[in-house]
């Protein structure tokens, strides 16, 4: 019996409307008081191609994918073929059999089949094939026990702006779906008990929206970007909102322009950012070095996808960590921070702007497709808690020319920063090595001092960096490290392992550079096994961890590089298999705890 944990998948062709229906059902789950996570698995094309949208509901906030799909709504046979192996035994499939039939070899006997001519009903009863999505929502609601009033309420809400006729059509589609289930199938599939609670004051928000919102609240008033999946949402959001707050957004001609525009605006005193993904990040590399040497505060959001080259543009991966840490010729101080939840996407983006301005360097906010394009439920965000600390900025008044030195040597390596327009502050900001006044020089002693000044900021900033979050039992024998979207599946694995008698500790890293060596050393102390969970082939995080803790036999990589996010069972099984452990009761592995 799985109570209050369900994973629903809508599968069909891109453009079928799976996203709209998926968002609708996510909203219904939210209003039923459940915590929701959504995951978009769509092809890199606009029309056609298999797409699916996963909605996972549970009673735990910030969980990710479940172990398996409980309910698959397959609008075509391809969806069954693609996902039959992901079905949980005991789950069910709603299949549109209007024009296709399921061949026997695909008919798993441990799932229940509800074959319904969705398209036919849509066309014949409602006069519009397009509404088969909404019919499927009615079917699904009846099968898993969604509150019918909430379903109607949300359908009305979503279609309200399209007029009463469309609302009415969709409500009738819901009714048609519910009716079909009642008339044709006896009772609900066993095992799904969704108890309705109170929605409370909560939001459902996508990671990219939270990043953009965090930037706006933190005072970002300039963004330049070049469209790229999965980062474009940030550019679109900012395009709508920034002008309302006195800011401006530029769609640049390429990422070279996007990042150099961001530098230009930041040099002029505006909190500025860009957002991109791997291919764009590669193009931005040279200018990031310029930001480092000119000590210009810029925030660069990296919404990672699979690489190399074009990779799989709409799929998730954590393979750009090395790139963010090491890319570029020469050496500059830089910061890489990685949110693990939608809430942290908001909070850490705001933090990024303070770090950038306080220490006058580039700050990367690293996220990935499985978080930045996923939606999750969360308590309202506290705008008032966002503080704006502009560091040693001199935006008004005047300075004395000759005395003022833009790159002055200071104890913390951070120099007072004037912006154009301030009397007396005129200087050259050169990408070439320069002295404290900005005059280009190749003097050996100055070069060494300047390197120490710039790189020293990484030490000065230690206390301001986002700390790692400890989950689980602090002195457990088994230690797990991870970051980003893996926070959800790892945290769930930790809880379920504990319920089965296996205690673990999990350190969710939120600052990835400068690498939190002390925190990691402290965290792994006394552990018998250390697992590093990440979505890449080469173990980029594990290599950093190994450099800190040494070559331990008990250091294990748990890696996935097929473009899909971890499911918690994958973490659980890795831990149990590697450590030769079993849970007290096998049943405890279930998601209900």
């Amino acid at each position, binding site marked *: 019996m799985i109570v209050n944990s369900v994973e629903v998948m809508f599968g069909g062709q891109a453009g079928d409307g799976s996203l709209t229906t998926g968002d609708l059902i996510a909203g219904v789950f939210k209003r039923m008081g459940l915590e929701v996570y959504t995951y978009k698995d769509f092809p890199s094309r606009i029309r056609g191609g298999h797409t699916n949208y996963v909605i996972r509901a549970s009673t735990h906030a910030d969980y990710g994918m479940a172990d398996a799909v409980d309910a698959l709504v397959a609008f075509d046979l391809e969806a069954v073929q693609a996902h039959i192996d992901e079905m949980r035994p005991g789950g069910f499939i709603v299949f549109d059999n209007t024009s296709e039939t399921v061949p026997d070899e695909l008919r798993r006997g441990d799932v229940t089949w509800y074959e319904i001519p969705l398209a036919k009903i849509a066309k014949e009863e409602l006069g519009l094939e397009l509404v088969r999505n909404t019919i499927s929502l009615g079917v699904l609601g009846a099968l898993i026990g969604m509150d019918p009033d909430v379903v109607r309420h949300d359908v009305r809400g979503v279609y309200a702006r399209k007029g009463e006729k469309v609302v009415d059509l969709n409500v009738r589609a819901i009714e048609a779906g519910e009716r079909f289930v009642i008339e044709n199938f006896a009772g609900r599939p066993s095992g799904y008990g969704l108890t309705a609670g109170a929605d409370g004051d909560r939001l459902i928000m996508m990671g990219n929206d939270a990043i953009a919102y965090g930037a*706006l609240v933190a005072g970002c008033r*300039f963004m330049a970007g070049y469209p790229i999946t999965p980062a474009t949402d940030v550019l679109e959001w900012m395009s709508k909102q920034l002008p309302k707050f006195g*800011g*401006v957004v530029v769609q640049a001609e390429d990422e070279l*322009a996007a990042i*150099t525009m961001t530098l230009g605006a930041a040099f002029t005193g505006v909190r500025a950012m860009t957002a991109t993904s791997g291919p764009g990040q590669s193009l931005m590399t040279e200018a990031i070095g310029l930001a480092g040497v000119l000590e210009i505060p810029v925030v660069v959001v990296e919404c990672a996808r699979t690489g190399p080259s074009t990779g799989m543009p709409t799929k998730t991966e954590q393979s750009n960590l090395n790139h963010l840490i090491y890319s570029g010729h020469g050496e500059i101080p830089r910061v890489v921070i990685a949110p693990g939840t939608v809430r942290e996407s908001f909070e850490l983006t705001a933090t990024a702007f303070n770090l950038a301005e306080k220490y006058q360097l580039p700050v990367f906010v690293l996220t990935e497709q499985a978080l930045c394009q996923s939606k999750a439920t969360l308590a309202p965000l506290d705008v008032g808690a966002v503080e704006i600390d502009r560091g040693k900025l001199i935006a008004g008044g005047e300075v004395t020319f000759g005395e003022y030195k833009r790159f002055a040597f200071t104890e913390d390596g951070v120099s007072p920063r004037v912006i*154009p327009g301030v009397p007396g502050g005129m200087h050259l900001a*050169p990408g070439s090595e320069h002295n404290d006044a900005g005059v280009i020089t190749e003097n050996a002693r100055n070069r060494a001092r300047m390197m120490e000044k710039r790189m020293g900021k990484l030490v000065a900033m230690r206390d301001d960096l986002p700390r790692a979050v400890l989950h689980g039992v602090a002195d457990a024998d088994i230690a797990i490290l991870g970051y980003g979207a893996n926070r959800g599946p790892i945290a769930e694995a930790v809880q379920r392992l504990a319920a089965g008698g296996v205690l673990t500790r999990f350190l969710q890293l939120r600052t990835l550079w400068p690498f939190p060596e002390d925190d990691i050393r402290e965290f792994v102390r006394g552990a018998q096994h250390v697992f590093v969970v990440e979505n890449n082939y080469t173990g980029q995080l594990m290599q950093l961890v190994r450099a800190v803790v040494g070559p331990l036999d008990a250091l294990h990589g748990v890696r996935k590089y097929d473009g899909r996010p971890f499911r918690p069972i994958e973490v659980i099984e890795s831990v149990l298999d590697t450590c030769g452990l079993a849970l007290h009761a096998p049943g405890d592995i279930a998601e209900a705890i």
Partner: protein
Amino acid sequence: MAVMSPKDFATATPSWWCPGCGDYGVLSALKQALAELGKQPKDVAFISGIGCSGKISGYLHSYAFHGVHGRALPVATAVKLANRDLTVIAAGGDGDGYAIGAGHFVHAVRRNPDVTYIVMDNQTYGLTKGQSSPTSATGYVASVSPDGNPDTPLNGLALALAAGATFLARGFSAQPKQMVAMIKAAIEHRGFSIVEVMSPCVTYNKINTYAWFKENVEDYTATEGYAPNDRVAAFRALTRDGDIPLGIIFKDERPTFEDRTGLPETPVAHVDLGASRADLASMQAAYR
């Protein structure tokens, strides 16, 4: 308007240019133009690229930015958007603007920000010791083209005209008076203004010398009846065979990028970030 002198725009930094470099003439004309316009160094943002000509930003007392190769224009565009009260000037050589930066050049023209761009054209790569540049003549013999440059030279101003330029001028660094006048007009032009200056490289380009230019330039706009608002006439002037035309070749009015992006009158750099907290919080209603 404050009375300014070219000296007010001088820096103490000694020049790294070769004696006799055409860029000296461009720098002194720029200082003269800024002084005559009564500009204050604090209000001038001067963005340059990389190369010999890119070094010019070190020699103008202003808020100067010497960035990466080919990217002066995106930086300058953003500086203008960030603070529209500034006088924003970008500068660089023909390699910086027409080779590595050619993509940005076309898009800056399309956008039409109120930025002045000075291209110092010496038809060679000076700082890397004399290779062919995008404006080198076909057949130009250089270290990387020992059998002669195989490429056709780029006509930057004609390219800009095709992309929707609103101000095009060409000068010669040995004709300071004309240069001062066109740089002043360019800065005063509301929109993206391009001043291309024939600026000889005395060290590497032994073909396109001062003497050669004197023989091969013509003050075309002094021609009777030439109207710089005629796009077709401008294109004819820029692409004809014969002498290189000098002067303000084309001028047009079009909304600037600042206008079209709906930029508020208050410079973005001076927006009060503490304001509108209530508005910001209320945005969450869309996610409930």
